[in-house]
């Protein structure tokens, strides 16, 4: 199995603060990988480095073997990496469907083609019934799914999801989990940034744990959950599984 995305010795500092410190990991195609860690662990910075929104201080990001760490976000997207934002960002006077159409214009200029692709993306996240709604009429879980649908319309090979389940109730999160599993079964590679451990254990086939910017563990959810360093980072010293 080849690595779709490879992160090698990635570091990012803001002045004296080292947000990401020498992190390496690889994503296997067609799987869901989770990047977890307590608040301030550097997850989102790591995510932004991969998405091209920030440039690393040192290190490499290879997508399909090509370095992308200095590529601007719009070109990263056109290469096949789509992302969502932690704070949902719908376009205000456009309908749900029109929001989802924008992503499709990264590979087509045909409006009706974009419309049908957007409709398919909405269908795959369960929003097809609300295609004509205005975005301010959507509930938070729906808006998070709209973010995912927008990203899907770009026809990505790799989907980066930034805390899509933060702030959702357990039943809502469960339906998101089903959507993500469906996408992975259809062959999409997903990198999930999340701090809700329980959901990650359920959905991810591989987990990378960050703490104070550094990678402290990597493995299957079971292995990671049993790792004493991971427990320590989440709960402090003195706790045991």
């Amino acid at each position: 199995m080849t690595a779709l995305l490879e992160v090698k010795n990635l570091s990012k500092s803001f002045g004296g603060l080292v947000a990401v410190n020498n992190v390496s990991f690889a994503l296997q195609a067609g799987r869901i990988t989770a990047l977890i860690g307590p608040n301030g662990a550097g997850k989102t910075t790591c995510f932004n480095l991969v998405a091209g929104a920030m440039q690393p201080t040192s290190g490499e990001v290879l997508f399909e073997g090509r370095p992308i760490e200095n590529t601007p976000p719009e070109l990263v997207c056109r290469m096949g990496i789509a992302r969502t934002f932690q704070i949902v960002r719908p376009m205000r006077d456009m309908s749900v469907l029109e929001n989802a159409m924008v992503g499709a214009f990264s590979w087509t200029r045909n409006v009706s083609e974009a419309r049908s692709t957007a409709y398919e993306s909405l269908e795959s996240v369960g929003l097809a019934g609300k295609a004509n709604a205005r975005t301010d009429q959507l509930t938070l879980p729906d808006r998070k799914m709209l973010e995912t649908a927008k990203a899907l319309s770009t026809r990505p090979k790799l989907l980066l999801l930034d805390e899509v389940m933060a702030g959702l109730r357990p039943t809502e999160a469960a339906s998101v989990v089903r959507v993500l599993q469906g996408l992975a079964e259809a062959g999409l590679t997903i990198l999930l940034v999340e701090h809700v451990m329980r959901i990650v254990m359920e959905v991810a086939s591989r987990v990378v744990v960050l703490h104070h910017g550094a990678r402290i563990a990597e493995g299957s959810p079971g292995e990671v959950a049993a790792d004493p360093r991971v427990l320590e980072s989440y709960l402090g010293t003195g706790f045991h599984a």
Partner: protein
Amino acid sequence: MQKRFEGSADIRPWLAGAMVFVTLALVGALANPYLISLMTIVLLFTFLGQSWNLMLGIGGQLSIGHALFVGLGAYSVAVLEVKYGISPWIGLLLGMFLAGSVGAALAWLSFRFEVRGIYFALLTIAAAEFARIMFSGWEFVGAMQGLFFPAPTNAIEFSMLRGDARFYYFVALALAALGIVGTELISRSYLGYVWRAMRDDEQAARALGVRTFRHKILVIAISAATAAVGGGILALVQGSIFPDSIMGMGLSVDVLIGPVVGGLGTTFGPLVGSLAAIPLNHLMSALGDSLRIPGLNNIAYGVVLVLVVWFLPDGIWPAMVRLCKAIQLPSRVWLPQPRKAEE
């Protein structure tokens, strides 16, 4: 179910638009000369407002120096015709090319160095003022004395765009129609979607693969080129141009009044706004003259603008649309309704 999105092109707005233009054409055929010249200005500013509206209302880029592009168009037409006797059609093309290039260059320089948003708007003022001062001192283009077109004849000469007031009224009407149809077509094309996404959130748009740098340059170049066409016709209608009036701050403000009052980013906003604001200005000006209160028009104009922005912040056109919908709504209570398509 998916068909609802495919072939559901609504022709009602086009029909309504066509009716508006038939009415305006009848006005042109029947009205008195004063009304015709007033309406010519209204329609020209509808077109100019449309060009400004494309840039801010759809592309999200604020220009407070649109007089620069209007002036380049006006001078291109005037210099070619007055100095060399070349047809204004060529002048319009030259103006579009010049203004489009200047707009693109200004945008490129600005965004290349991360000057954006309100700072870009300040840059447009600076560029317009720079051009005004330059043209004021440039003997070749008439400097402060301006340029005068040959005395108007009443014979209509289409190749030289020369004719009487009624002729110019129909030219302005055609231009306004062109502007409205063009804006509508652009906003329904992929450019419209991509530009509105860029306007609402540049970072989010980039993450969806929108190459915002080139799209910002494109929308500004198109807006500038269309403003130049409006400027060229405005010069012909006025019969003379002076740097202070065609490139001054006053013109930049006049251009944006229509879309702001009428409704930013809407297709009919600039027309409705110009129809409301320009006759009001003229009316108050006349009233001020007869009452011997100089400047009454400016005061009244200002008060009305503040009131509109205060009470109808979206503009007049969206308020009219809301009103029409509100009038239709109660009828649904008792009229038999076709069964709604399932959601």
